C-alpha cells in the first residue's frame, strides 16, 4: 500500500529537556551534543519558567548535527505546560487553578504548541506541580499530551494512566496528539529513552517549523526503538493515509499496514528490544497480526491486516514485544482519523 506519509521526512525528536538555565546539568551546547549522540534531528530546550538558554541555542544552529527547538516549560503550581516553539517568556505566575485555557491560548498566539507534560506524575511534595490539577480545562483541548515521560517510560504506572486518558479522549472524538518526552536533566538516569518521530514536510525552511507543523497535524509516532509507521487505505483505491490524516468515507474494504523501520538512533537498542506484533485499534475494537521481515524494506518489520467494516473514529497501532525479556509496549502511532460516514 503506497501513499501514507510519502515524501515526509520523519524527524527523530526529543521534545522535553532542561539545561543549566533551570535545573538541568548540561550547558546548552552539551545538550546539543547529547542529542546528536542519540541520533536525534531535533531536541527541545524546555527550561523551567525561563528562556535564557534560547539565544545560545539559536546561535548554535545545527552545528552538532541536531537542531534545538525553542521552548519553555510553564512550571506552574497546578500542572506543567510545555510551550513548544515559543521564542519569548510566557507568563505563568498569575495562573490559578482555572488558568490552563488562558495559557494554552497565549502559547498558540505566539505561534507555539501547548502540551501537557507528564499529566499523572505524582505532584507535591514529590514533584511540585507535576500532577495535572488544572480545572475547567479538558485535556483534549491541548495540542498534545506527553504520554511517555522519563527513561523506561513503558514501565511507569503514571504513564499508563496518561495512555488510558488519551484513548478515552480519542474515543470521545478529540483529535489530540500524543508524544514522548524524556524530561532530560543530564547524565545519570539509566533506562531506554523513547523518541518522538514527527512527519515533516520537506522544504528549505528550518526543521523546527516543520516539526511544529507536523505535531499540530498529529503526524506523530513514538517508540523505544525502531520508527513506527501506519498506512490505512481502502482496497482498490490508489492512496493510503498516515497518522494525523483523515481517511474519507468510501465503499472499499479497509486495509492497514504497520511497519517498524530502522533508524540510526535505534541500532544500539537492538539487544534490549524485541518486536513481535502489531495491534490495530479503533473506537471499540482491535485486531492484531505478527510482525515479519518486510520484503520491501531491509531491516524493517511489517504486519498487514484487513479490517472489519465496523471500524470507526480512528485507527492507530501499538507495537508489542519485549524489553530485556519482559513483555512491553515498545511503540505506537498517533491515529489516522476516519471521516464521518
Amino acid at each position: 500500500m503506497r501513499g501514507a506519509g510519502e515524501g515526509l521526512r520523519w524527524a527523530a525528536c526529543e521534545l522535553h529537556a532542561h539545561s543549566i538555565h533551570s535545573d538541568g546539568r548540561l550547558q546548552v551546547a552539551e545538550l546539543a551534543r547529547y542529542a546528536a549522540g542519540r541520533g536525534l534531528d531535533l531536541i527541545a530546550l524546555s527550561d523551567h519558567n525561563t528562556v535564557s538558554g534560547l539565544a545560545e541555542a539559536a546561535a548554535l544552529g545545527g552545528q552538532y548535527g541536531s537542531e534545538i527547538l525553542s521552548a519553555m516549560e510553564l512550571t506552574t503550581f497546578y500542572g506543567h505546560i510545555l510551550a513548544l516553539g515559543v521564542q519569548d517568556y510566557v507568563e505563568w505566575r498569575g495562573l490559578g487553578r482555572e488558568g490552563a485555557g488562558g495559557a494554552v491560548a497565549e502559547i498558540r498566539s505566539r505561534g507555539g504548541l501547548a502540551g501537557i507534560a507528564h499529566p499523572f506524575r505524582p505532584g507535591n511534595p514529590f514533584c511540585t506541580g507535576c500532577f495535572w490539577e488544572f480545572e475547567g480545562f479538558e485535556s483534549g483541548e491541548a495540542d498534545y499530551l506527553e504520554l511517555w515521560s522519563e527513561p523506561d517510560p513503558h514501565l511507569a504506572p503514571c504513564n499508563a494512566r496518561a495512555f488510558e486518558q488519551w484513548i478515552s479522549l480519542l474515543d470521545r472524538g478529540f483529535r489530540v496528539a500524543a508524544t514522548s518526552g524524556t524530561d532530560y536533566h543530564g547524565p545519570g538516569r539509566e533506562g531506554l529513552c523513547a523518541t518522538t518521530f514527527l512527519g515533516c514536510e520537506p522544504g528549505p525552511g528550518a526543521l523546527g517549523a516543520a516539526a511544529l507543523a507536523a505535531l499540530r497535524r498529529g503526524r506523530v509516532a513514538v517508540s523505544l526503538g525502531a520508527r513506527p509507521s501506519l498506512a490505512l487505505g481502502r482496497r482498490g483505491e490508489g492512496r493510503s493515509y498516515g497518522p494525523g490524516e483523515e481517511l474519507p468515507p468510501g465503499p472499499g474494504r479497509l486495509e492497514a499496514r504497520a511497519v517498524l523501520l530502522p533508524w540510526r538512533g535505534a541500532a544500539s537498542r537492538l539487544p534490549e528490544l524485541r518486536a513481535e506484533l502489531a495491534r490495530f485499534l479503533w473506537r471499540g475494537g482491535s485486531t492484531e497480526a505478527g510482525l515479519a521481515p518486510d520484503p520491501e524494506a531491509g531491516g524493517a518489520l511489517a504486519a498487514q491486516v484487513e479490517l472489519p467494516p465496523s471500524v470507526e473514529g480512528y485507527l492507530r497501532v501499538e507495537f508489542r514485544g519485549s524489553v530485556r525479556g519482559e513483555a512491553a509496549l515498545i511503540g505506537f502511532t498517533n491515529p489516522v482519523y476516519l471521516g464521518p460516514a
Partner: protein
Amino acid sequence: MDQGALLEVEARLGPEDSRSHRSFPFELPPGARELELELAFEPAMLEDEALAARIAFEAGRRFGIGPEEASRRAREGLRNLLTLSLDGPGPSFRGCAHRQGPRVLAILSAAAASPGFLPGPLTAGAWRATVSVHCVASPRCSFRLRARAR
C-alpha cells in the same frame, strides 16, 4: 542596609504558603553596572523522617502510589522549592532561577547574566523580585532575599 543595597527582606513560611508568590518591588538607581540578587532559604527539606513518611504516605494515596514507593520517596527527602524571578521596568521579564538548592545567586549586567537570567540594559526604575513558593514541605521555612547594585 549596606551601600548599594536595594532590598533586604526576611520572611517565614509554612506548608499553607505552598503555591503562592511573594513579590518585592525595589527601585534601581541610574548608572548601575551590575545587579545582584540572592535568595537563601532554610531548611532545604523536611528533616523529620517520621513526619516525611506520614506526609508521603498521605500524598501517595492522592496520586496512586503504594506505601512502599511512598516510603522510598520519603527517604529520598521531601524538598522545599522556592524559586526566584526578576522583572525590570515595563515590566519586562529578566529571568528565573528554578532549581533545587536553598541558595540562589543571580548577577545581571548589560552583557552577561547568571544561568536562567537575561542580560540587557539595567534600566533605572521600578524592578520586582518574586519568590514563588512552589512547595514548603517542612513545618516552617524561612527565606532571606537581598538585591544590590554596583
